[in-house]
């Protein structure tokens, strides 16, 4: 099934307030995508997985993208169906100040770790997630590095995160011209 057919099917089922904003410009959007209202995502995905004609049994990838200019964080879902061999890309637009949306752990188990990674690196809160801890970074890390305005702290528990440039360390400072001239004269005096 083509993405726009799936889009129309979902729009009929869930209404234009839940499923909207189809983008399929072949020059820009190589994989056509559309928006889902964040708080409805679990229902929509459950339908995508269980409906026989759609049969999306594989959640490929969850990606978080930060758009500070629009004050948005966008969570992108790439879904694929092994049986039907079609794919769809869903996007959920969240408020950047308070990014929260329901979890998909109950629909696909693989969402568990991918959502944890998204929480870790972008700070998206997945409500209802059974184990929303940091995954890649230490538990006491501050900030979410994949946000565009993230600034690395100078140290972490006394371990510096910035090292001096090794080239600067081993640079030989040449004596000034006058000093070298005097040094050349000295043995002559002796």
């Amino acid at each position: 099934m083509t993405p726009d057919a799936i889009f129309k099917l979902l729009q009929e089922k869930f209404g234009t307030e839940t499923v909207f904003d189809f983008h399929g410009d072949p020059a820009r959007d190589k994989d056509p995508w559309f928006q889902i209202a964040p708080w409805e995502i679990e229902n929509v995905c459950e339908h995508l997985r269980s409906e026989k004609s759609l049969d999306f049994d594989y959640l490929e990838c969850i990606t978080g993208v930060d758009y500070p200019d629009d004050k948005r964080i966008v969570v992108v879902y790439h879904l694929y169906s092994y049986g039907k061999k079609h794919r769809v890309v869903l996007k959920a637009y969240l408020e950047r100040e308070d990014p929260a949306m329901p979890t998909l752990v109950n629909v696909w188990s693989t969402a568990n770790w991918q959502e944890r990674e998204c929480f870790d690196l972008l700070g998206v809160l997945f409500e209802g997630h059974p184990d929303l801890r940091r995954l890649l970074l230490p538990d006491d890390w501050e900030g979410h590095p994949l946000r565009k305005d993230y600034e690395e702290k100078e140290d972490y528990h006394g371990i510096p995160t910035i090292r001096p440039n090794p080239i600067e360390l081993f640079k030989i400072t040449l004596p000034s011209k006058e000093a070298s001239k005097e040094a050349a004269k000295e043995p002559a005096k002796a």
Partner: protein
Amino acid sequence: MSDVIFTNEMDEEMTLNMGPHHPSTHGVLRFIIQSDGEIIRKAVPDVGYLHRSIEKIGERCTYPGYMPYTDRVDYVAAMFANECWATACEKLMGIEVPKRAQYLRVISCELNRIASHMIAIGAMAMDIGATTPFMWALREREYINDFIEELCGARLTYNYHRIGGVSFDMPKGWADKVKTWVDKFVPLMEEFDRLITYNEIYIQRLANVAIITGKEAKDWGLVGPNLRGSGVKWDLRKDDGYSVYSDFEFAVPVGKGQFGAVGDCWDRFYVRSEECKESGKILQQALAKIDEHPEDDLVGKLPKKIKPEGEAYSRVESARGDMGCYVIGKGAEEPYRCRFRTGSFTAMGIIEAKSPGLFLADLVALIASFDVVAPEIDR
């Protein structure tokens, strides 16, 4: 420690630490295990020791300049991350890759797949306790390393593929050398099977251990050999037909549960060892056909300035399964966001769910049978 050793009560659980430097955890990877004697109640993976923020680095590099960093996503099979990044950029900009470059990609990738699987099956046998297969496997891998070194100058982090093609053509006489080796390698894999795959002790050790059904495997997003080990016949090379894989004849081995249930550790091992033979067949065909295409036609037509706009998701069948790259361009020299979806990451997710009830020694077999590589989990 003495408290733990002298405790005899049956209902007492103990918390054990495994890793980060345990030799069988395939890189720097840690497990916190709650066990009742030898039986695991729960094993919680603790990853992130090798996190180098590859995705953040990508936002600060130019599109072609990011290529060497992709090697570090998975250093055992670096060619695939190269290819994945290249195909993502090509899809984004609509670049066509010349046929000869695509053949070179297939040849380099299949060589790399054999090298990676050699590590996987050799290391798995060693984790279980058989040392000889590891030596055999590494001996063959050494030949491949030499071939790839001749091709692109590096033995581990290749940086061979380019956006739109590959960086070098084959050196003179290289194709014949690889052909001679492949002709020797395919029968050697059968000998390898006699040594370890169909070894009575080995089968007893791995059959019916940590069974993952096809449904579970799909649900947890397992990909590649791990998915096929569970009996799901799915290979991107066959089913998606990317690159020039449709030109070649090869089979897709799946786990059949020959000595136990479908999807046990032995099935995953078997799929990898069979895949090596199939890769050998692809190599033979590709090397025979490559000279149909003109020499030195290595890089497609690139735009003058690489400043794409839009987004694309592309995927390749890496040694660890479906590797995906999602790239968003915003008309700048650097990508706005790039993301790698890797096979080891999703394979690690299932371990916590699968571990209860396993023996402690079987956890080692489970990790080894997934062929996880720590840098690919952490990126």
